[in-house]
């Protein structure tokens, strides 16, 4: 409290903890609500890894799954900003609670010779994927799974030449079974 200063004093800062977060948002299914959410991310410089939207069983309610990477403080701020929107009903970060994650991907891959076709078929079987369209030199494959599985599958197909690819982005839902101690978790 005396007039002299010895060393510069700094506020103690909590350490940064960067991680991947899955945020689930229930919103009133109004005109423009999705723009409000994407605007919020854009204007505050938050980076979205994926965002999926769909109507729920209640026709006036939509559910949005957002995957973001960031420091915990930023994530907390994102959640607060989402809650602040008039049309949001519920916002939850389900990253740390038991949940199921799924993504659907459609991949057009070059088939080339017979050897390649066989190899691709084998991968399709291993990954429990499906071939949904065939042409002279391509297969179109449908696969679902969590992000790790999807990434692995894509990497394995890459050497054959991927012609086009479409992914839905992550969908997630909490596990009801985890609520009951003895319920079996079925993957």
């Amino acid at each position: 409290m005396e007039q002299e200063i010895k060393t510069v004093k700094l506020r103690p800062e909590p350490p940064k903890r960067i991680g991947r977060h899955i945020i689930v948002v229930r919103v009133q299914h109004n005109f423009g609500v999705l723009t409000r959410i994407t605007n919020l991310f854009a204007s505050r410089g938050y980076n979205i890894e994926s965002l999926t939207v769909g109507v729920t069983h209640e026709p006036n309610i939509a559910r949005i799954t957002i995957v973001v990477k960031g420091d915990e403080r930023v994530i907390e701020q994102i959640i607060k900003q989402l809650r602040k929107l008039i049309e949001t009903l519920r916002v939850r970060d389900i990253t740390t609670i038991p949940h199921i994650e799924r993504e659907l991907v459609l991949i057009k891959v070059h088939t080339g010779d017979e050897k390649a076709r066989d190899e691709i078929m084998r991968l399709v079987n291993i990954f429990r994927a499906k071939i949904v369209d065939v042409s002279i030199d391509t297969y179109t494959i449908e696969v679902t799974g969590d992000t790790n599985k999807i990434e692995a599958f894509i990497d394995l197909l890459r050497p054959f030449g991927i012609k086009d690819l479409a992914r839905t982005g992550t969908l997630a839902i909490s596990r009801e079974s985890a609520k009951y101690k003895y319920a079996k978790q079925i993957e």
Partner: protein
Amino acid sequence: MAVKRGADIIVDVLLAEGVDTIFGLPGGAIMEVYDALFDAPFRNILTRHEQAAAHMADGYARASGKVGVVMATSGPGATNLVTGLATAFMDSVPLVAITGQVPRHYIGTDAFQEADVVGITRPITKHNFLVTDIKDLPLIIRQAFYIARTGRPGPVLIDVPKDITQQKSDYRIPTDDEVEKSLPGYKPHVEGNYVQIKKAAEFIRKAKRPVLYVGGGVIISGASEELKELAELTKIPVTTTNMGKGAFPETHPLALHMLGMHGTYYANMAVYNADLLIAVGARFDDRVTGKIQEFAPEAKIIHIDIDPASISKNITVDVPIVGDVKNVLKKLIKELKKKPFEWEKAREAWLKQIEKWKNEHPLTYEKSDKVIKPQYVIEEVYNITKGDAIITAGVGQHQMWAAMFYKYSFPRQFLNSGGLGTMGYGFPAAVGAKIARPEKEVIAIEGDGSFIMNIQDIATAVQYRIPVKVVIINNEFLGMVRQWQEFFYDSRYASVCLSVQPDFVKLAESFGAVGLRAKKPKEVRPVLEEAMSINDRPVIIDMVVDREENVLPMVPAGKSYREMLLSPGEKGKAETMYLVG
């Protein structure tokens, strides 16, 4: 159920909301509504620019605590509102803006005067609506008012296509209950968490060097009495932000006045050395904190705010309390009174230290009898109004002097664009404030640069005989920018010299207002006296001041309080880099 035009439904719902004044300017897309307003019992203020209309509605809202209403036509009318909406948004001011839109079947066709107003204003409103069905119109208007005034208030815009204003429909005004139920995701009433309040009380009892850091939230929540009770009970000194001015009487012995970039030496010293900071309705803005890592480096922080997103946004908080400030303060006081405590004794050393800082460097300036010092003008405005006027300000040096040298003593007394920093705000806000509080003297402290940004609306003030006073701190400069250039850009005065100006006296007269001028210090008082005697028209006073006066103290942007520039040196420049410890 009545059957009416959309335009008439709008009028009916506005009446039901208790609206008495509307600011705006008509055009094609909103003509139907103006037609309906023609017979309606509102005070309908026709402005000369929509930006001024928005600021007037804002001044009206800030001065009264009621929701301000502004109207504009589609396209350019609506885009002219943008700055006013953003200003209100940053400072949490409740406004409802109603804009005309092109008819529904033209939307998306680049029709004449079409603009995506809902898109443009989405990030600068608390919420906005495009009406797509006349059946929704009454509910949407009621929702807009409800959203604007509750929780953390803010502007809400309703875009109404012209064909909806012309269409006839039966309608019913929804009840309060229906309005609340129609917004299931919006829960503006938050009770402060008791456990946290108890913890806060413990922190306050333990603190040796506590400071109350008070923002505009206290004013919005109407918690000035509670704040005063808390401060007096616990003997904690109070510093306010620019937005918090008036929340705590500045003549009170516990008042430290403003903190931050242009804060007083003693407020900044107190915050820098505090071991407990109690932030009430404030948001740790960068103009307050300076370098955030060195802001109140040793203090534990209690943060009371209605907006959870304000808490731990810029700084990590030890005791977050989400809730309406008034409510929380009441509970906190109750909690503190539960156990007897010797507050006087606990604060003795700290208050003595603060007294010392106050005596070392009071808020001051170099006086002159040759040239008018801007600070002197503000002091004289304070004296002549006995500290009882509502003051508005533009943005720049004059705004800071108005904040520093007028002593505010009641809430809603100082209106200025704190968050957005909008030049051109002061004068129209004064007009709006005077309409809301006709019994009060309302004075706009304007810069020569700021005033001219909405000068056209002198006509409005004359037309409706709104007797506001405008005191122009005329330094023929964009003074605040010039000051930064002097301090940080080697005095290279790029694009700041307003060497061509209107003759403000003649200009005022040409509008039918009164124009006055003072060039010498001894003229200041008589000119103000003359101005105060006029009460049927606006009075514009051109105060020709010392051109290169600087606002001090100053913590340069992004710097620590340690690096506060304190007093003018010989050449009127800040020479001392003070280390405070």
